[in-house]
């Protein structure tokens, strides 16, 4: 890849930004939440009892909390962190706005149905398609705005699962989708852990990091030739190796 080409530089930016998705933790989070949804659908006759909704919120909250903890303790020590360019941050904010808009629409629809102001009398299939659509679109938008390719798989599976509740009156699609996404997440996580083992104490930091000082020029000095060789097979290509940087 040639860094002189603007398109390639954009690809390098995308790879740097999507590095955070290479740990598979987000897939595990989504997969587990879908399984929780399936579990609570099995408790349909208990929905009116007081502990169902708090229990659901508590479980999804615990999963999300676990996701942030895992990212902090498993992923960051292995790949480090970066702050995206302002253009990327703006793109992420737009994605969040789209999501917020659709969540508001969904909440309004649920509210209108609950208060009896909205009684859809059109075909069940149409309703299920509409439900799939309003779930799929924001998830696909988030995948697009964050350049997260596996997010499209999540969007399709969750969209189909949502529609299937209405069309077939079953939550089994949530179980299947949850298991598929969970499996993908596990495979990605195992590959991530193999590819990025925890670095030695000093390896991820400036060599005399413990002292909080820059190394002496002589101490960390290597010739340009040696540096080029250490960069390995991708020296001179102008960009990192695909196996390190690849957007999977």
């Amino acid at each position, binding site marked *: 890849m040639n*860094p*002189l080409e*603007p398109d390639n*530089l954009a690809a*390098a*930016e995308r790879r*740097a*930004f999507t*590095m955070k998705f290479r740990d598979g933790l987000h897939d595990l989070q989504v997969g587990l939440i879908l399984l929780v949804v399936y579990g609570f659908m099995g408790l349909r006759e208990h929905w009116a009892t007081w502990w169902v909704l708090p229990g659901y919120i508590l479980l999804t909250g615990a999963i999300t909390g676990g996701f942030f903890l895992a990212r902090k303790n498993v992923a960051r*020590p*292995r*790949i*480090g*962190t*970066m*702050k*995206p*360019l*302002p253009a990327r941050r703006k793109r992420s904010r737009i994605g969040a706005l789209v999501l917020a808009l659709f969540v508001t629409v969904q909440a309004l629809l649920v509210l209108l149905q609950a208060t009896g102001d909205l009684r859809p009398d059109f075909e069940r299939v149409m309703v299920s398609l509409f439900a799939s659509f309003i779930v799929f679109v924001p998830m696909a938008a988030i995948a697009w705005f964050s350049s997260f390719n596996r997010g499209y798989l999540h969007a399709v599976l969750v969209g189909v699962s949502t529609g299937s509740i209405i069309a077939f009156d079953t939550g089994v699609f949530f179980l299947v989708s949850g298991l598929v996404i969970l499996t993908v997440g596990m495979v990605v996580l195992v590959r991530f852990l193999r590819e*990025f083992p925890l*670095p030695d104490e*000093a*390896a*991820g*930091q*400036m*060599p005399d*990091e*413990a002292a*909080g*000082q*820059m*190394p002496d*020029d002589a101490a*960390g*000095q*290597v010739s*340009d030739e*040696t*540096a*080029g060789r*250490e*960069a*390995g097979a*991708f*020296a*001179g*290509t*102008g*960009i*990192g*190796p695909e196996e*390190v*940087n690849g957007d999977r």
Partner: protein
Amino acid sequence: MSAADPANAPAADPAAIDRLIHEPSRLLIMTCLAVVESADFLFVQRQTGLTAGNLSSHMTRLEAAGYVVIEKSFEGRKPKTELRLSDDGRRAFERYRDQMQVMLAEGAR
């Protein structure tokens, strides 16, 4: 990032090419830092595949040239090194890309 049209640009002088950036490992580092606002040492190391000592040595050179800003801090009790391109560094990288594109276009004629 660059809007220069190599086909219409004047021929580049090879002697004007920034040798500091032209070295493969430093070009990797500059490319990595050009596509982010800032990154920590480990992230750049993972992205470039360089060893810590090697990366550190190149960072020292780039910092001496004013292309890179290195900020050291502590996150709790753990030291953290934040790296980013300076404004001069971004300009130098853009200039380097423009010059190389012109040279490659000239060579292709």
